[in-house]
């Protein structure tokens, strides 16, 4: 901003901020903001300012605030709690708004008494006065129905804060030390300065031990100050009126200071707690983001929840309409009847059930529904070894946050799986229709030729010359052989798909297999010239000869199909570092660059105008499957010297392959 000499926020589209509190109508405010944001297509944020008042909220109010923040997140907004640092809440809100280029602030009209506002100031009025170029929308309370936030039906444990006398004793000790120090310095500095020693002690106690010990320290310090230093000493009476004033001011200052110092401490402690929670939630979400499979997400959710709340966790997801245990920490795969009933009730009613709740409290575990903005995902169940309430209110709020994150992560994975499944269905539909086209066209065409030729011979032979008869018979034979190749391809593909191809490899001379493939393909290649350039120094390779011959046959068949008659098909082999490359090079039109990879897809067939070449479109797919089964690779490219395709097979040279060749 400074660099561009723009002062303050610059408008980059609307951005809305909604201020929420523990007020029951805050949820309505959030919903209102969501509607407004949708209309404006604007991003929005809900903030709650944590002031010292926040620390005094009842658990019900805290729950409501947490629920409102979760609601904002569920509705697609950003939810933040920021610590109040300014003198007034409005300062913090405006500060945040400026820093984040907010254009509109939404706040509910206060229902507090004029007396309250006179004392504490009105946030709304402060905001309006100080907002500058940011619009402030004040929503009247009447527009927002107070949302009956579902009362937490789960009993939670009181925060375990048993009386601990140690801080009080220690604060007395500190005062005693201060007394000693004061006695020591009094002869040198005079009575006027000993109160500072006591004040230092009080502040120290306040910062270290909080409000109540520091109040005790204030009182004790005042009494000591009076007893030991204000004349008449060693009595609690004060004779000099100026000393009376000094004593009361000392006491007042001690109390104020301890109050302030204790508040600073509380805020620091709560900030640390918040940072810790945020950190663990962040770590949790990062862990979830890194997981790809449903099992991993479930496991991470269960594990993190168990770890952070010190409870046992089970996760249940619906499977074919039945709620089933998917994972647990520690691992668990079945629930007893009562637990299952509670889990099912929680799932069916989207409410908490089981231990410590209103519904089925007899169950061993407490079950909470996991849901996202889209709907319910599953159920999480927790329990521990103790009896009584499972969680403190803070833990309960943390659990809600964890469950929300877990639910989102599970939904994400489920959506990805759904998409995968949909894609696979489309793919298999496409394959099926391609297969049907292939069978109906490519199998029926040669059959039609055979049938036609044979029936012509039978019915019309009297009118045919010998040459015509020979021609018809040649058609029958050629087309039958074509049919045979198609069927062989379909069989090979089926075998590949079903995983029935187990290469039976041994060391083979690649040239020998090329030779036998050429012999088998000789009929197909009659109209082409074949040139062979096999390097003489090739080592034997680890191959399944039958599969490899079929690969070569398919490639030669392909080349013969796409390269015009009387052109040359070259077979070239060479050693390339630790591989042997074998290339089938033709002089056809080549392969469109965009399709160099898809030629290996099942049922791919080169298109020429609207004419599709005959063939099952399986030859190259089978070749790739076979070559990969033999740990090789196959790729397609175009010639650079002229038009034409180059199919390259690369096979690894086995270790110590030359020994035998030289020995023999």
């Amino acid at each position, binding site marked *: 901003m400074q660099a561009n000499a723009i002062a303050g926020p610059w408008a980059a589209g609307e951005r809305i901020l909604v201020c929420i509190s523990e007020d029951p109508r805050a949820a309505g405010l959030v919903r209102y903001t969501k509607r407004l944001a949708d209309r404006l297509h604007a991003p929005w944020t809900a903030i709650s300012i944590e002031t010292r008042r926040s620390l005094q909220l009842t658990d019900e109010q805290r729950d409501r605030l947490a629920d409102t923040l979760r609601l904002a997140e569920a509705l697609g907004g950003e939810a933040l709690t920021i610590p109040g640092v300014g003198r007034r809440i409005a300062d913090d809100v405006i500060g945040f708004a400026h820093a984040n280029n907010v254009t509109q602030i939404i706040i509910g009209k206060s229902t507090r008494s004029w007396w309250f506002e006179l004392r504490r100031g009105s946030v709304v009025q402060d905001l309006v006065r100080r907002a500058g170029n940011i619009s402030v929308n004040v929503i009247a309370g009447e527009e927002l129905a107070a949302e009956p936030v579902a009362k937490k039906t789960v009993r939670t444990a009181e925060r375990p804060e048993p009386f601990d006398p140690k801080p009080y004793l220690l604060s007395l000790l500190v005062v005693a030390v201060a007394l000693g120090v004061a006695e020591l310095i009094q002869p040198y500095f005079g009575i006027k300065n000993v109160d500072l020693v006591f004040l230092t002690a009080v502040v120290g106690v306040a910062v270290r031990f909080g409000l109540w010990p520091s109040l005790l320290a204030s009182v004790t310090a005042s009494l000591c100050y009076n007893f030991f230093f204000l004349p008449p000493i060693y009595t609690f009476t004060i004779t000099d009126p100026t000393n009376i004033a000094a004593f009361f001011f000392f006491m007042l200052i001690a109390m104020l200071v301890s109050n302030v110092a204790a508040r600073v401490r509380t805020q620091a402690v709560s900030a640390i707690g918040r940072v810790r929670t945020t950190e663990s939630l962040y770590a949790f979400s990062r862990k979830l983001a890194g997981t790809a499979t449903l099992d991993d997400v479930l496991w991470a959710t269960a594990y993190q929840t168990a770890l952070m709340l010190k409870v046992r966790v089970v996760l249940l997801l619906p499977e074919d309409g039945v709620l089933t245990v998917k994972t647990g920490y520690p691992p668990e795969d079945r629930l007893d009847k009562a637990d299952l009933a509670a889990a099912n009730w929680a799932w069916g009613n989207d409410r908490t059930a089981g231990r410590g709740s209103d519904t089925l409290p007899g169950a061993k575990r407490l079950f909470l529904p996991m849901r996202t903005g889209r709907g319910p995902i599953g159920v999480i169940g927790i329990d521990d070894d103790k009896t009584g309430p499972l969680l403190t209110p803070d833990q309960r709020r943390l659990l809600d946050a964890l469950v929300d994150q877990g639910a989102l992560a599970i939904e994400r994975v489920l959506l990805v799986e759904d998409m995968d499944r949909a894609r696979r269905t489309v793919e298999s539909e496409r394959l099926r229709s391609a297969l049907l086209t292939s069978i109906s066209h490519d199998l029926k065409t040669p059959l039609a030729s055979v049938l036609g030729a044979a029936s012509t011979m039978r019915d019309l032979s009297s009118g045919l010359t010998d040459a015509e008869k020979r021609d018809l018979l040649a058609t029958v034979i050629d087309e039958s052989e074509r049919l045979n190749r198609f069927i062989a391809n379909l069989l090979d593909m089926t075998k590949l798909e079903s995983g029935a191809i187990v290469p039976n490899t041994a060391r083979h*001379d690649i040239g*020998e297999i*090329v030779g036998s493939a050429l*012999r088998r393909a000789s009929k197909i290649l009659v109209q082409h010239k074949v040139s062979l350039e096999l390097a003489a120094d090739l080592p034997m390779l680890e191959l399944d000869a*039958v599969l490899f011959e079929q690969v070569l046959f398919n490639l030669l068949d392909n080349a013969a199909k796409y390269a015009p008659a009387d052109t040359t098909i070259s077979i070239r082999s060479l050693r390339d570092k630790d591989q042997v490359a074998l290339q089938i090079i033709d002089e056809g039109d080549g392969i469109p660059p965009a399709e160099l990879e898809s030629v290996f897809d099942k049922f791919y067939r080169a298109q020429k105008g609207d004419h599709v070449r005959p063939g099952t479109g399986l030859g190259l797919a089978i070749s790739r499957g076979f070559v990969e089964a033999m740990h090789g690779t196959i790729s397609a490219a175009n010639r650079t010297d002229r038009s034409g395709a180059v199919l390259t097979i690369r096979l690894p040279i086995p270790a110590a392959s030359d020994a035998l060749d030289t020995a*023999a």
Partner: protein
Amino acid sequence: MNATPIKVLVIDDEPPIRKLLRMGLSTQGYEILEASNGKIALEMLAQDPALIILDLGLPDIQGHELLRMIRGRNDSVPIVVLSSRGDEAGKVQALDLGADDYLTKPFGMDELLARMRAALRHQLQVHGERPVFRSGDLSVDLVRRIVKVGDKEVKLSPKEYELLRVLVQHAGKVLTHRFLLKELWDELTDAQYLRVYVRQLRQKIEVDPERPQFVLTETGIGYRLRAPD
């Protein structure tokens, strides 16, 4: 052809195939006996066929089992098995069990006749071996141990000559890797040795060793020497 026709037993459960073989083979002067299953086939053995064509996929008796049973009763009659593509292991097994050759369905009549001739020729040769084998430009004088391609004499190492001799003795017939290994070394030798020697033999007797005309590879099965003229 001959005055006494050669009896061929066709064992196949498909009537159209039997009919085709009957028609095709009759024109070549063979006399055809037909069996639609293994049981009938075993009975037909009594009629002493000179050659058997056996489909390995029969309804009642598993093909290899029937082959074993036939060999149990008659260890010299040439047998040509019909098998489906892709079943190289089944073919090798059949050859090891004593079949003389195999054909992959579907096949042409010319191929079948060539296989039958090779199988019958070998049986005749067992009795009277011809001293000089000729096929195209290749001639092998088994008595004087002279190998020629055209007019040029070819020097072969003892092992190469052994290999060629075994091939010549079964010219036109497929020989499995295992059979050749057993003849030349022993059964446990790695087939790689065989491939190396075949390559060397081809370098010496083939015009274009990459596209052999004499020593043909039967991928996944073994080798076959071109039939004599």
